[in-house]
């Protein structure tokens, strides 16, 4: 199967502010990340704040050009932002952000906002656009009457449905969902997740699902990548990774998930805080917090290496201890 989207060794560096006589500190938010997403599939991207998962999503969307590496969509390189070809590609690449209230214009009825991508991409006549907006509202489980309402008149779950309808308007092939349900109540999260999964099945949309919720990612992803400080540390089948992670960071992340009642495996509590992305440790970035650290970890950054079961792990000791 040909890849829908392919990120090949992309990096993104934010330049630190230069001071007199001093060097500004650069933040390498994403460092040589490669990902492949097949049509209609879901790739889960997990990690803690500052690990670069949102920046990776923005690179995949073509909103932020990578400083190194390349992004290919349907086999063609993503065009530079602002060009006609980029605009055409962007119609098929859409974002579902975390905070729907922040993503919507408070002064416009939601129907006008759902119609906006159609206007921008010049799709349909005014009558066709109106019909399309009604159909989109129905697709996300809202009545046509909801279209006349303003964002503050809707609940959090309804607002997120509006944001998803807008993302679907131009007929995308890929949705980058950046923590799409984190701001919602628990009983509403499941509604929105099920809706996304159903829309994906009906339209063959691929999802890049960015989340800190490992349990949710396991339920809906076909493959998963764990990031730490800008790099992918483990990638592969979600069942395998969450059942028996190989990278020590992935192990700690999985064991940090709260579970009711007595736990089967003792929790690995990581010492210390995630390090500052502007002050990345040498060698393996995880080595200051790692239980299995050795001399090679402090000197050499480990490469992502394929393991016997097919998953990729970036750890000098991955093969040695299961």
């Amino acid at each position, binding site marked *: 199967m040909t890849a829908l989207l392919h990120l090949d060794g992309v990096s993104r560096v934010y330049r630190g502010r230069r001071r007199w006589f001093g060097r500004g500190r650069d933040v390498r938010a994403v460092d040589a990340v490669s990902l492949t997403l097949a049509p209609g599939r879901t790739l889960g991207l997990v990690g*803690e704040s500052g690990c670069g998962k949102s920046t990776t999503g923005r690179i995949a969307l073509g909103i932020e050009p990578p400083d190194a590496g390349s992004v290919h969509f349907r086999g063609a390189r993503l065009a530079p932002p602002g060009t006609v070809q980029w605009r055409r590609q962007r119609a098929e690449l859409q974002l579902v952000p975390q905070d729907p209230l922040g993503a919507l214009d408070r002064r416009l009825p939601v129907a006008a906002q759902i119609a906006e991508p159609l206007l921008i991409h010049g799709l349909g006549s005014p009558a066709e656009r109106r019909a399309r907006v009604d159909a989109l509202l129905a697709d996300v489980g809202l009545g046509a009457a909801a279209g006349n309402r303003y964002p503050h008149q809707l609940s959090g779950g309804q607002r997120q449905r509006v944001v998803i309808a807008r993302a679907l308007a131009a007929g995308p092939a890929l949705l980058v969902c950046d923590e799409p349900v984190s701001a919602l*109540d*628990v*009983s509403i999260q499941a*509604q929105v997740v099920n809706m996304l999964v159903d829309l994906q099945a009906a339209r063959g949309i691929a999802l890049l699902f960015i989340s800190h919720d*490992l349990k949710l990612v396991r*339920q809906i992803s076909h493959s998963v990548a764990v990031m730490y400080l800008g790099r992918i540390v483990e990638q592969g089948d979600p069942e395998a990774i969450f059942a028996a992670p190989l990278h020590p960071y992935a192990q700690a992340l999985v064991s940090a998930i*709260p*579970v009711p009642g007595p736990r089967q495996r003792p929790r690995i509590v990581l010492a210390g*805080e995630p390090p500052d992305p502007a002050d990345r440790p040498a060698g393996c970035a995880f080595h200051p917090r790692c239980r299995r650290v050795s001399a090679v970890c402090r000197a050499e950054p480990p490469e992502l290496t394929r393991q016997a079961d097919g998953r990729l792990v970036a750890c000098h000791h991955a093969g040695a201890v299961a």
Partner: protein
Amino acid sequence: MDGVLVSIRDLRVAFAGVPALRGVDLDIAAGESLGLVGESGCGKSVTWLAALGLLTGATATGSVILTGAELLGAPAAALERVRGGRIAMIFQDPSSALNPVLSIGRQIAEALRLHRGLAGAAARAESRRLLDVVGMPDAGGRLDAFAHELSGGQNQRAMIAMALAGEPDLLIADEPTTALDATIQAQILDLLRRLQAERGMALVLISHDLAVVGDLCRRVAVMYGGRIVEEAPAASLFARPAHPYTAGLLAAMPELDGPRRRLAAIPGGVPEPGDFPSGCAFAPRCPRAGPDCVAGVPPPRSLEPGHRAACLRVAA
């Protein structure tokens, strides 16, 4: 119940006539850990803000008794001794709960002066010891740090140190790990577990996350629409949820083990104060609701010792 520390009876709170809390009965035993679970607007935070007299512009009726003394309507001076002294509270966002222009050490010392009469070098030494107790790295150096110089997890540790300064009998932790990353959340939950066990302090953990509550608490109360709908030992609640809302919440949670399955969503939306349905507040979303559920508020029924559910469909 033996050794009841706090006893809440028929606590009702309204903001400008809009009811937010509609009759809460809850007992906290000395040294126990209780989880208070529910979604936004269910009243889980309001219960404790009202109990501690921290709500402005609200009317609260009912009774909150702390070892024989009524807190509701108590004089300000009495409440000030209770707050931070007998009952301490920590919040979701530590960096906004801390004073940005005072050092961490000064803020802990203030609590020590108010509740234990410590000052000067003694207060500084005790502040440092408390920062050690909560696992602050480089405790001595952090006394002079400000909130913006610390990470979210370190700020929450500083808040917990301040809460411990008055040696409280009860710590109310309101979503203490919601703003934190997963690995830091695990650190803070372990810290709360250790402090509660070592000090024999009672703990009320307010959370929207059943898994977090089940991880830390022995007993759980589930709230919906301004009332407690189910109350049980954590093990019974997770094994045999009785109220359809509790069962629905558990089914909506994805699991880390077992076969992957479609999530079971609860239909409808979370009711907001001012828009609470009459009768059983969950009835409009409930798969088992009938006309009798709307007719009146279902009283709590006892299922087994310590396990109660306010549902007409539960066999008593």
